[in-house]
């Protein structure tokens, strides 16, 4: 098992009630696996159209998650 600390921002942070959450995953794990575990932990997040970032880059559902990766939940953005 590996522990992944996931950063949460904006609406995702408010729904989860925290700016970071620890997710347990069995290696090897993909972004899709991470999302599944994340939604089990914080069901309210599933309704958001989330993107996942790994090491500050958007990651597709099939990308691998590694133990030392910086993982973040990116709800719909709205700068400007």
């Amino acid at each position, binding site marked *: 098992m590996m522990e992944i600390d996931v950063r949460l921002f904006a609406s995702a942070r408010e729904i989860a009630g925290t700016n970071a959450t620890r997710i347990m995953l069995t290696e090897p794990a993909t972004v899709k696996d991470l999302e599944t575990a994340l939604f089990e932990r914080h069901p309210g997040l599933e309704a958001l159209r989330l993107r996942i970032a790994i090491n500050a880059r958007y990651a597709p559902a099939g990308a691998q998650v590694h133990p030392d990766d910086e993982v973040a939940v990116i*709800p719909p*953005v709205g*700068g400007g």
Partner: protein
Amino acid sequence: MSRRLFEITPDPISVDDVTSRLVDPRVGAVATFVGVVRGVTGERETLYLEYEAYPEMAVRTLEQIAQEIREKWTDIREVAIVHRIGRLDVGETAVVIALSASHRKETFDALRYAIDRLKEITPIWKKEVWSDGDEWKSEQ
């Protein structure tokens, strides 16, 4: 004076500050876009906006946008984008985009691309706060 071309800052930002970061002497044109906190959206009066960012990734996406612009419009020399975060009152500047080119022609299309792309990929969020509630806003 700062030469950082891409920045997320809690401090007030000005057009002069951002344009001064462009120093390429070959330029003949500098174009700027300034995003300002709007006081009324639809029927509702906004009290203030609360901006939040994932700063490291936001700066990376701003660098990416500048790279994309230089690939699409070869006349564009430099791009600077500064976005403010934290609480902003109505009328305050949220974002300044400045870009330089040897001629004016490509600057306007490139500016539009920059702000559209920022709203699409840059991890910055804004919450509108009214007298009777609030909401995270996104055009996505």
